[in-house]
Every structure is written in structure tokens, then in C-alpha cells.
């Protein structure tokens, strides 16, 4: 009797402790061998490659196969969803088991570079005849440069444009948007396409859609999100608030689905099911819209609107980089792969396959032909670009921003209050970075 209750308490004590010990073992990943060898589990002569976008996997696999054919080096690609990707990378970095080659993003690059986690590519790039710095956009190099050393080779660039549903426009008798439209035109169009019974909305900009969504409004109005020296937030700048007020109009007038609906379904799903007529999206979404039967038939792309007052039409832009682990076992092979992925033929193939726009200059023509949409709109957006705002702790302040702005969507805060709060929390975190 005593014994039994003792056993019970031991078991329960262990359960309680088990929690503290629990690490981050949740990662939904799908792995597949690209080399066709059929082996599961990374054998020592395979290069492990990690990415987060399922849509790009098939195209990249083809390119990796080409690499294997050319060099005999086998690769193994694994796709881990965005959230888990960074958990995995963090754990890998700390435990000394990063993948051999992986994607880097501006949100995180500085932390990895400054902590010496990435392979320094500077000398290798200098010695390479395939990678010439001038062939890629300088801003993208900038994201992956620390103390004048290069830590990744640009993979792609992305810009923003508006996707619209031709079918819904036809039904409402509204003419398709053209490249010379303004934000006021967009608001007006959205009003016409919104049905009062809630079965259809003019547009959708999700609460966390900053890069493809409301950041563009801010820069069109001449506002900013982060100062050039990364010390000050621009959220409380009057021009920033002016830009955000356009979003506020859409929220207030009910031109967008509710925050609840968007958080449950996402812009992509809502657009692909014909619930919203317009949605601003980055060029990285093409593969998904191409694969979807409904959007392949009914959707098309137009440039972002201009601002009537300032005449500006800014697109936020960003680009991923291919990076390698500093303490990897196969750094020589890893560099060979990165060099190959950054080389003109591979970058061209990436564009042709429609994986994404490539970073390599002069490959965009191939990309425009990769899908049956007006992809030229994305290229036209390159005339006036601003790099996606980032600092050392981007993730931290961006997540807090998203939380605050969600409260504007649900009506708990006014846009101006939210902007003030976002500025405040962001300034706090930026000050912390300087320490």
C-alpha cells in the first residue's frame, strides 16, 4: 500500500520533470534523396541541403541532380517548414550539426555571421571564375556580408505585385487593373468587389504580411520602418502612419476578411478558393499559384499601385542566400555546391523552371516565360526597390509588431496607437542590440 503510492509519486515526479527536460524535438520535416540512390539517412558522402519552401523543392531537386551528374557528389535535400526551420538551425548551430548547405534569410543572417557559424566564402569567391560579385545585386550581398566578409552566395531576388482573380472581376463587371493605377484606385476596386453578405472580399492583407503587404504602403508615402543605422524605429513617423492609414481604411470598411478568418486560412487559401479578389504577394509564390488549378486558370498579376501624392511605387525586396556550415565535415564539397548553385547555368535553370527569380543578372527573361502569368509585373517592380527592413533581432520585433497590429484588425487599438506601441517596443529591442 505504501509502496504503491510511492511508486505512483515517483512516476508522477518524473512526468513533471520530463517537461523541463523537453527540448525542441518537434519538426515536421520531409526528407528525400535527390541523387536517386534510394538510401535513407544521410550517409557520410552525401551533402545535406536544407530549405523551407516546399514549392521550390521539385525545381531545386532537378538542379541538384545536375550537380550530382557533373561532380559525382550526392546531395540530400530536406524541407522543413519556416518556423521549425529556424528551430532546427538554431539547435544545429549550437550542437555543431548544421546541414552542409542551407538557405539564409536577412531576418537571421547577422546572428549567424557574427557568431561565426557560417563558412567564410570571401577567398573562395575571389578565386572562383563562376561567382563574380558584380553579377548579383549589391543589396543582397549586403545581407550576407559581415565585417567585409561574404558568408553566402545570393540565390534569388523577390519583389511584390498584386494578384487578382479575373473571374471575380468579370462577374462584377470591373475592368482589370493596369500598371498605372493608384492606391485609391485599388481601394475603390476593392469596394466594388466586396459583397455585403461576406461571401466575397475585395482584398486580403494578413496581419503578418509586412513585406508583401503594408510595408509597401509605408515606403510609398515616404515613411520607413527602421533607420539606416538600425538604431531607431520608423513606426511613429507621421508618413509611416499615413501609409498605414490606407490599411486602416481597408480594415474599417470591411474590404478584407476578418482577422479570425485570415488567421485560420491565410491569404493564399482565401485567394485560391475565390473568397478574395486581390492579394499582394511576393514573387516566391508563383510555383504555388501555378500548381493550383483554379488560380492557374483565373489569376493574373499586376504591378503594385502608385501613390497618387508622392508618385512613388516602391516594392520591398529581399533575397535568400546559399550558406554553408563553418564546422561542417564537407566544407570543400559544400562550397562546390554553393558555387554551382550560384553559377550562371544553375541560376538560369532556376529561373526557367520558375522556381524563383534568380539573383544572377540577366536571367530574368527566362523567368518571365516560366509561367502563364504576367510575370513582367514583378520585373517592373524592380525599378524602385527597398530592401526588407532588418536588424540583428528582426524576428523578435517583427513578431511583436504582428501581435500589436492584429489588435487593429480586431478593433482593440486604433492604427495610430498601434504604430506608437510598435515604435516603442521596437526601439527598446534595437537599444538592446547596441549593448
Amino acid at each position, binding site marked *: *500500500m505504501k509502496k*504503491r*503510492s510511492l511508486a*505512483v*509519486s515517483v*512516476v*508522477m*515526479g*518524473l*512526468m*513533471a*520533470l*520530463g*517537461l*523541463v*527536460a523537453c*527540448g*525542441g524535438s*518537434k519538426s*515536421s520535416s520531409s526528407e528525400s534523396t535527390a541523387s536517386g540512390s534510394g538510401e535513407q539517412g544521410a550517409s557520410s558522402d552525401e551533402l545535406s541541403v536544407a530549405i523551407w519552401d516546399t514549392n521550390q523543392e521539385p525545381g531545386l531537386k532537378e538542379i541538384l541532380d545536375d550537380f550530382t551528374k557533373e561532380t559525382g557528389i550526392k546531395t540530400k535535400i530536406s524541407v522543413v517548414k519556416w*518556423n521549425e526551420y*529556424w*528551430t532546427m538551425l*538554431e539547435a544545429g*548551430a*549550437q550542437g555543431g550539426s548544421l546541414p552542409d548547405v542551407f538557405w539564409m534569410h536577412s531576418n537571421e543572417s547577422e*546572428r549567424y555571421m*557574427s*557568431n561565426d*557559424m557560417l563558412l567564410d566564402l570571401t577567398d573562395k569567391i575571389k578565386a572562383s571564375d563562376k561567382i563574380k560579385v558584380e553579377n548579383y545585386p549589391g543589396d543582397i550581398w549586403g545581407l550576407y556580408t559581415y565585417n567585409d566578409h561574404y558568408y553566402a552566395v545570393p540565390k534569388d531576388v523577390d519583389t511584390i505585385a498584386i494578384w487578382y482573380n479575373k473571374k471575380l472581376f468579370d462577374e462584377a463587371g470591373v475592368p482589370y487593373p493596369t500598371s498605372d493605377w493608384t492606391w485609391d484606385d485599388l481601394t475603390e476596386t476593392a469596394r466594388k468587389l466586396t459583397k455585403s453578405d461576406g461571401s466575397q472580399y475585395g482584398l486580403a492583407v*494578413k*496581419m*503578418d504580411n509586412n513585406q508583401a503587404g503594408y510595408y509597401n504602403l509605408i515606403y510609398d508615402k515616404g515613411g520607413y520602418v527602421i533607420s539606416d543605422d538600425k538604431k531607431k524605429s520608423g513606426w511613429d513617423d507621421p508618413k509611416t502612419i499615413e501609409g498605414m492609414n490606407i490599411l486602416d481604411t481597408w480594415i474599417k470598411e470591411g474590404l478584407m476578411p476578418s*482577422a*479570425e*478568418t*485570415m*488567421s*485560420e*486560412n*491565410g491569404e493564399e487559401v482565401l485567394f485560391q*478558393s475565390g*473568397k478574395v479578389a486581390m492579394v499582394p504577394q511576393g514573387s516566391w509564390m508563383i510555383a504555388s499559384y501555378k500548381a493550383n488549378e483554379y488560380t492557374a486558370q483565373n489569376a493574373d498579376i499586376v504591378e503594385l499601385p502608385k501613390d497618387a501624392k508622392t508618385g512613388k511605387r516602391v516594392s520591398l525586396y529581399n533575397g535568400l542566400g546559399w550558406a554553408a556550415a563553418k564546422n561542417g565535415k564537407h566544407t570543400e564539397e559544400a562550397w562546390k555546391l554553393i558555387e554551382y548553385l550560384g553559377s550562371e547555368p544553375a541560376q538560369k535553370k532556376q529561373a526557367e523552371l520558375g522556381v524563383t527569380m534568380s539573383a544572377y543578372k540577366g536571367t530574368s527573361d527566362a523567368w518571365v516565360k516560366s509561367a502563364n502569368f504576367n510575370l513582367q509585373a514583378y520585373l517592373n517592380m524592380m525599378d524602385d526597390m527597398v530592401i526588407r527592413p532588418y536588424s540583428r533581432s528582426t*524576428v*523578435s520585433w517583427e*513578431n511583436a509588431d*504582428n*501581435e500589436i497590429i*492584429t*489588435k487593429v*484588425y*480586431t478593433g482593440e487599438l486604433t492604427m495610430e496607437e498601434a504604430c506608437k506601441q510598435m515604435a516603442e517596443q521596437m526601439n527598446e529591442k534595437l537599444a538592446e542590440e547596441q549593448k
Partner: protein
Amino acid sequence: MAEEKKKGFSFTSREKNEFIWGWLFILPTIIGLVVLNIIPIINTIYQSFFKTGDFGRGNIFVGLQNYQKVFADKEIWQALLNTVRYAIVEVPFSIAISLVLAVLLNKKIKGRSVYRTIIFLPMVAAPAAIAMVWRWLYNSDFGLLNHIFHSKINWVSSPSIAVYSIAVIGIWSILGYNMVLFLAGLQEIPGDYYEAAEIDGATGISSFFNITLPLLSPTIFFVLVTRVIASLQVFDLIYMVIDNTNPALGKTQSLVYLFYRYSFVNKNIGYGSTIVVVLLLLTLLVTVLQMIGQKKWVYYN
């Protein structure tokens, strides 16, 4: 041997043998516990006194600062409240329902093992898969629930009900497991008690309350305590069902969810560790209270 005896060891060769084999048998478990539980626990407690640097480097000792911040943080208190709300719904309902099911399925009825299997099935499915299915059932625009009831309820995105919707998933997925434990307990109760009660004229219901419940109380107690601990640690359902832009997130996120967010998303491992140490203390406190309380209602014989 002879030498040992001289030194005063009183082991016989048999005792020595048993000693070695005994330790050998539990060694794998001990190694597992130390490597997977004990060391990480100590590490976590250690980290909770630090402002951790990137990738575990450059930690700065800050004493109790993290704890002060945790106790002053409204978000933490809200998360605690959410966690308690979840537990208050999940634990009693999952126990009551599975107890009834166990009693019913302990009788000799046709297809008993089929029913048992069906009810146990959710336990076999991966939590992620369960969450995905329920997420679609609950979806306010395309979900089956709203479609059947012709309603427009935001099951998982309305701050006032989302936590309960999640608790329902929790109940559904744990029923089978609880039921199996109860079945095992029920089968330990000798049949003569019921026969005697029947002769004395007891109805099925009164023998349930006067025989089954008291004799099953050790099992109920075990299930209760383990469920309370598990429900205080709820994470995966919330993580899978509630998107991080969900307006209901603030009113549903549990302490472990916050721990995840601080440690793995915001990379503030020191603060995340502090949250989880606080949860550990809380769990221990609740469990100790339950151990004391059991004397009032648990009969071991």
C-alpha cells in the same frame, strides 16, 4: 574473496552477483534518465539565472532578474490562467467520460474489443495529424462543424471560446488512454462484491458509486494526477491549431507555448527557461497538494 572478507565486506558471492546484475539491469534506464532528463533539468535551472547569448555563448549572469520579470509579466499570468482553464475542462471531462466508457465496455457485450479499439485509436494517431484534422473541422469558413450546424462560430479564433475548443480536442484524444487504465483497474475488482451487493438488493447505479468508485479510486487518482501534469504542459495542440496571428492567441497560449516562443522563436533561452522552471514548481506544488488530498478519498484496499 578472502581479501574482501578481511576488509570487513559482508557480501557473499551471491549477494555480490545480485548487486552487479541489479545495477546492470537498471543501468540503461539510469543513463537515459541522466542524459535525457537530469542533465537538461539542471541545465535549464542554471540557464534561468542568465541572460543567454546567441547559440549558448556569452551568457551573462543576472541572478533573479528573469524571475522578477516573469512575475511582473502580465502575459505570463494570462498564460497561466489559460493553462488552468484548459486543465479545468480537460481533466474532469476526460476522466468522467472515459470512466463511464470503461464501465460500459467492461461488461460482456457484443463487439466489445471493436469498441475498445475504436476508442483507443486517437491515441495511436500523431498529435500533429489530430490537430490538423480538428483544425479543419473547426475552420469557421470551410469547416464541417459550422457547415452542419449552419453557424458562423469562430471555434478556434474567438478569444472567449478557443481555449475550450482546444480542450475538446484534448479530451477526445486522451479518452482511449484513460479508458484502458480504468479497464485494468476494473478488472482487479473481485466479482463477488457485486454479487453480494445484488443479493442485498443494490441497483447497478448504487453499486457503481459504492463499489466501483471506491475500489477504483487508486486508478482514478493515478489518472487524475498524471492528467493534471500533462494538461499543465499542453503545447502541441495549441501550436498546431492556433496560428501566430490568431486574435485568440493571447487567450489560449499556455505556459509551455510561451516557453517555446521565448526559447526557440525569440531566442531568449534564459527567459524561456525561467518560465519552465516556474511551471515545474507549480506542477510540483499541485501534485503535492493532490498527494495530501488523496488521503481523504483514495482507498488502497
